[in-house]
């Protein structure tokens, strides 16, 4: 018998107590699983009570695991998180990843102080800190990372501000032109408009001639001449319509293209900034841009806005000689400002994300010294072992749902409270694990 067969057989003779724990574990509801063994019974109860709203609709897991038990709970804002740190190391890890003693951990300020305390976890969500080698911890203020981070942040603060002004001015001009062209088109051409009126007038005019012919008032020749004239008038009208339509299209699409161009320039400025900070264009940048901006159409967004409706009403009033209450200029401007805030927020997400992801290995770091809480290191990224194993990545910090914490933490984990009220949850990634953390 091969040794691996022997190993497989001997695995069948493992300690019945360990096996029983394993079986019981699999039968437990997921939110009870993997709670740190050091946690007191009271803390477990408290955690369970707090967690109940999040899991109340979840079915208990059964043995074998039910696929319905694999749903990730939606992330919701919380004001208090729990920080866990695997300070005592994981026996199964290589010595390279053996963690330093608690006192040697240098992650700065309140975070360090928080780690030194020993408070049982009692929140529905948690921030997990996984630290690697002491070498990394001594290099949290890694100048390369700091430089990249600062560079990106400076792009955010300065370059984007420049593009923002340019974007606002140009976009407003194009939006006004396109909207007014749209208004004119619909009034005069689209849906019939004045063309329809023109056709009706021609028809009415020649209906009278036809009636006269029926009454014997005019001859056949006169009728034929009149019908030729009607045809010519209708042709001219159609020609005018087509010309106007083409003119409108040209104007409309020209400005739409210009608007898109302005918008793209705005986005590209960010892309260039990111690429510059990274030293290269990489797929991450495109993915992020696509994720945040891929589906946006600025004119479409404008056309669906309340301001657009007001602007349209103002155009109609102006057309009808009614005093215009709303200032079209300010309507466009106010919407653009609102839109720009959304853009800026999205960009900040990108910026923050990239700061988190400055390490090419996926390590995430961020200096939040201006947050009022001086964490030297606070970041968001997937809790994936490969980030620790591969290359030189030493540290992964992640924010996880309580469920994830429960299934992730080792018994040796210690939990401490950390007030993260100044922050907001953001979205999660496709794996349902990664969340960004934004300042409120």
């Amino acid at each position: 018998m091969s040794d691996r067969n022997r190993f497989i057989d001997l695995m069948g003779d493992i300690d019945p107590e360990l096996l029983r724990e394993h079986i019981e574990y699999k039968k437990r509801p997921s939110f009870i699983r993997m709670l740190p063994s050091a946690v007191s019974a009271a803390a477990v109860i408290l955690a369970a009570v707090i967690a109940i709203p999040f899991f109340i609709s979840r079915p208990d897991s059964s043995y074998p695991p039910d696929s319905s038990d694999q749903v990730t709970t939606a992330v919701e804002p919380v004001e208090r998180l729990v920080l866990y740190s695997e300070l005592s190391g994981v026996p199964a890890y290589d010595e390279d990843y053996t963690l330093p003693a608690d006192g040697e951990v240098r992650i700065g300020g309140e975070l360090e102080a928080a780690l030194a305390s020993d408070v049982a976890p009692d929140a529905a969500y948690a921030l997990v800190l996984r630290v690697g080698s002491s070498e990394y911890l001594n290099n949290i203020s890694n100048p390369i990372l700091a430089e990249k981070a600062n560079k990106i942040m400076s792009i955010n603060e300065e370059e984007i501000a420049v593009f923002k002004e340019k974007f606002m001015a140009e976009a407003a001009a194009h939006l006004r032109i396109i909207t007014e062209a749209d208004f004119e088109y619909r009034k005069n051409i689209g849906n019939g408009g004045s063309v329809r009126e023109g056709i009706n007038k021609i028809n009415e005019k020649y209906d009278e001639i036809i009636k006269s012919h029926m009454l014997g008032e005019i001859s056949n020749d006169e009728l034929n001449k009149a019908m030729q004239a009607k045809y010519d008038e209708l042709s001219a009208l159609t020609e005018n319509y087509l010309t106007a339509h083409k003119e409108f299209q040209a104007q409309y699409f020209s400005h739409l293209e210009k608007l898109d161009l302005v918008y793209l320039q705005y986005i590209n400025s960010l892309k260039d900034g990111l690429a510059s900070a990274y030293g290269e264009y990489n797929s991450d940048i495109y993915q992020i841009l696509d994720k945040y901006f891929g589906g946006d159409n600025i004119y479409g967004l404008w056309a669906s806005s309340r301001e657009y409706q007001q602007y349209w009403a103002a155009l109609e009033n102006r057309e009808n000689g009614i005093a215009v209450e709303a200032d079209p200029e300010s309507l466009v401007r106010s919407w653009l400002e609102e839109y720009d805030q959304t853009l800026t927020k999205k960009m900040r997400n990108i910026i923050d994300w990239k700061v988190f992801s400055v390490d090419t290995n996926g390590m995430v770091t961020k200096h939040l010294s201006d947050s009022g809480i001086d964490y030297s290191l606070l970041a968001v990224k997937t809790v994936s072992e490969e980030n620790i194993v591969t290359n030189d990545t030493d540290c992964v910090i992640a924010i996880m749902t309580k469920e994830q914490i429960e299934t992730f933490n080792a018994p040796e984990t210690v939990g401490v409270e950390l007030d993260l009220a100044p922050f907001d949850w953001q979205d999660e990634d496709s794996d349902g694990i990664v969340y960004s953390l934004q300042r409120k």
Partner: protein
Amino acid sequence: MKNSIDDIIIKLLFDRDETALEKIQTEYGQLIKYIAFNLFKNSDVAEECLNDTLLDIWNSIPPNKPVSVSSYAAMLARRRAIDRLRKEHAEKRIYPGNSVYPDVYGELADMDDLSETVIEGIELSRQINLFLGGLSGTNREIFISRYFDFEELDSISKRLRISKNSVNTRLFRMKNAFKKQLTEGGYRDE
């Protein structure tokens, strides 16, 4: 609760009361079939393994008096299923389609040098238990799920909500750590 059920089952078995088997089937039938199903991906075979396991339990208790009927049943079911798998493989030279066993067997290739040292099965078993006892909860769950239950990596990953790569990595580390433990214990050369 479980202990009292186990106590009842054991008593019924000692009394040679066949209702014990019904209770085992009710309580642990799914567990027994789960292991067999992982190996064969066949519900009928899993059902047969359940019957075989019930018979084994009936024939072995008494005299045996396990502390945990679930563990005992899982152990017997696993043994039955593996024996059957190996027998079929010896005859047909193929494993059942989608069986996890060949994957697990392949993963354990680096365990093939265990025999480079003289280590008795009973001591190796003790070392395995020692090793498992020292693992973190999550890691132990991964290790047992994979090498006892023959659970698929995807399933472990989803159930524990960690990436598949992470599961793989942890298993890799754990195997290395186990071999290191054997080396440090003088059971294996570097």
